[in-house]
């Protein structure tokens, strides 16, 4: 077998690849056909609501994957991943705001909220955001750089476990307060919304939405394969060893800080990309994405699916968010009970999540 074939068989077995292929077929063939080609009158038509919802959940699944990489494989529980997600979203949002042009409420060159604040020009951090590729660079660099600097100091001074979780929570809380200020220049409370175009395409047409949907799906699959490739490599083994006994790994001569820092920064970058895909589909980004509650919810997606499995993270994000959109519409007052109980029951009775239950069931039959 050639090196590529070895890699392919290393990532997933035959069944795994078939499942992944089926998933890809649904995303790239079934959804576009039933949404764009089948007329709305047909019962098989997939409406915009479903395209947006599934697109949104796939963004969350990327975040869950990123979370699983640091929590499931390196044992670092972050309570601040919502911050990286929101930063990527804001970077994309800045580009989208500039694409509105003069079509805002005030028909001015500046975005509405700046007109409202009586600003005459863009603040410095908006420089260059009218160029798509520069904005995409920001999507990757800003969360990555912040994670790198934060992680460098935290891991170097051996802040770990719960301490690390609490300071990441403080970090996202501080950022939320910062972004809530109007003077910060990101639209305060309301954030960014009312987007019109992306790369010249009108954002609300079914075709644009389907394109965004497909890009998100491709990113998700790409992130899954990348993650899988990482955790099955030598790097992944060291990472898991660090999770289980960091001191021993360090005594074996590995610089554990670098390993943790790499996976931590990569995870933040993935979150940023997910945020950038999320904003044009959902059409709004505001500081509440950075609230500590949002970030901690990411952990439960991973826990429900089963941590340290990657596929479980995607399943968990799908199940929890699917339940969320069902409950918040049908029984809004019960959603917090369900979510709260999920936190309690999963930690008490399902330490390996849904994937763990499936494996156990398969092992007994």
């Amino acid at each position, binding site marked *: 077998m050639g090196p590529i074939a070895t890699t392919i068989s290393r990532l997933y077995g035959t069944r795994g690849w078939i499942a992944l292929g089926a998933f890809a077929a649904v995303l790239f063939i079934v959804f576009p056909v039933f949404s764009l080609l089948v007329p709305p009158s047909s019962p098989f038509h997939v409406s915009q609501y479903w395209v947006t919802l599934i697109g949104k959940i796939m963004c969350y699944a990327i975040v869950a994957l990123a979370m699983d990489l640091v929590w499931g494989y390196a044992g670092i*529980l972050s309570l601040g991943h919502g911050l990286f997600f929101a930063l990527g979203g804001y970077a994309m949002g800045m580009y989208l705001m500039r694409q509105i042009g003069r079509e805002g409420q005030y028909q001015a060159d500046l975005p509405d909220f700046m007109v409202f604040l009586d600003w005459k020009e863009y603040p410095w951090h908006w420089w260059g955001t009218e160029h798509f590729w520069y904005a995409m660079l920001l999507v990757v660099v800003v969360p990555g750089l912040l994670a790198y600097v934060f992680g460098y100091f935290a891991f170097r001074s051996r*802040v770990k476990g719960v301490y690390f979780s*609490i*300071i990441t929570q403080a970090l996202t809380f501080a950022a939320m307060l910062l972004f809530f200020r109007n003077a910060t220049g990101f639209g305060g409370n309301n954030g960014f919304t009312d987007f019109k175009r992306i790369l010249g395409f009108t954002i609300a047409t079914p075709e644009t939405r389907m394109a965004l949907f497909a890009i998100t799906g491709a990113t998700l699959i790409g992130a899954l394969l990348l993650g899988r490739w990482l955790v099955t490599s030598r790097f992944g083994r060291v990472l898991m060893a660090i999770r289980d006994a960091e001191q021993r790994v360090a005594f074996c001569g590995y610089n554990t800080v670098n390993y943790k820092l790499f996976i931590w920064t990569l995870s933040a970058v993935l979150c940023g990309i997910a945020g950038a895909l999320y904003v044009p589909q959902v059409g709004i980004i505001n500081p509440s994405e950075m609230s500590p509650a949002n970030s901690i919810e990411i952990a439960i997606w991973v826990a429900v699916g089963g941590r340290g499995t990657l596929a479980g993270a995607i399943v968990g994000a799908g199940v929890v968010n699917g339940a969320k959109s069902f409950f918040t519409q049908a029984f809004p007052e019960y959603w*917090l009970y369900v979510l*709260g109980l999920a*936190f*309690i029951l999963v*930690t008490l009775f399902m330490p390996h999540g849904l994937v763990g239950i499936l494996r156990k069931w398969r092992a007994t039959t």
Partner: protein
Amino acid sequence: MRTVFFLLMLVLARPCLALDAAAVGKLAFGDADERSAALAVLVAEGDPKMVALLEALAAGDVQTAGERVLIVKGDEAIDAVTGAKVTPLPKEREDVVANNRLRREIESALSALKLLSPDRAARLAAAQALATGAEDAVLPLVKKAMAQETDPAIKPMLELIAATLELKGGTKESRIAAIRRLGDSNSPNTKTLLMALLEKDKEGRFAETDEDVRAAAQASLRAVEGKLVWGEMGGLLFAGVSLGSILLLAALGLAITYGLMGVINMAHGELIMIGAYTTYVVQNLFRAHAPQAFDWYLVCALPAAFAVSALVGMVLERVVIRWLYGRPLETLLATWGISLALIQMVRTIFGAQNVGVENPSWMSGGIQVLSNVVLPWNRVMIIAFAALVLVGMWMLLTRTRLGLFVRGVTQNREMASCVGVPTARVDTLAFGLGAGIAGLAGCALSQIGNVGPDLGQGYIVDSFMVVVFGGVGQLAGTVYAALTLGFANKFLEAWSGAVIAKIAVLVFIIIFIQRRPQGLFALKGRAAET
């Protein structure tokens, strides 16, 4: 009977009710400027008897019939100048409509007339009303009142009002004199007034064009600020201690559950909330069944809040947390789930809106220490209460058998168990104690802030910061950390605004923990190694 009384009053009052007929006529028939001038004439006479006319004018009860000005109430009418009853009511009448400007002037004049009232409270209320904005016309009246005022609280207010009015108009000399007089004041309002004179508009021009006036204002402002600076510092210190004591109360329970037991309890904030809602329920019970003892409902609410929160805490420990000892990250997630469920439960029972918890009367108001420093009673009480809880907790941990057990179990669980300490029961009791103290905090916080389902969420990040900053397992560290963070927050706030101050403090803690993960005060000995 009332009509007879009214007539009698009229007859008796008649000799003094000789208002200036010309002025009254102008007030009714003149144009806007003439009416203002007429009002000023009438007010300058300072005749308290004209209050009736002004009140009627403001209420729209003044009508004209030919040359005569009448005050019409229902079917009765009296002549505004002579006070004589007019019968029969003339057929042809026209309403005198007061526009907004006149209304404002009338309101101001009515307040000014009350300045001469023999009742102190009425004078004080009138002075306060005028302090928010007086019309030029009342200046002579204010001066007259100032001359005969003896009350030390009211007189400076009158001086300020008079000076404000003189500043607005008048000659340069009189304005400068007024500014000089303001320099003797020690009221924060004076400072605002003087600062307004020195402000620049957008193009960089001064609002006040006269340079001499500006120089005088600058000098007076410096004098006033010199007097205010001590008060401001004192106020800031008090605000720091006050915030510190609130943080301490919120964090003390956590110092036990997290600091001593190592349980990450994300539902700590919700235990505080439960304490606050218990206070609300006790308050309602008192209002319904014992309104005469309402002032003392807190005496009942404190133990109730402690008991309810402690009970909830102990149940949680037995049902959930017990199974997760030694797995801090799982504990964190499970307790977060508990907090979500508790929030929703409170929403279901009490509604999503904030509920009203009223201060007992002995807690409202405050002590005036300096002209610009008022210490509100509820804040003072909370500082005292925090100190009390701290001392009580310290006694409990160091002077009782339970405290000994708790310390023993946290230092070496196996050894404690070997010598016969029931460690499982000690865990439950210790967690209950931490939860109960959170309940006490909730009872205290209900007296100074809103009580709603999200109450606890606002404190959870802060209280973890306090415990982590102070050093886990250290009561003294928690106290220092709470006070330090309280001061830091308030001083930064005065300098940079509330949000930036909060962000700065959070960032500071994040950096601090990275430099010194063991907190301000590290435990020495074996416990520090784990």
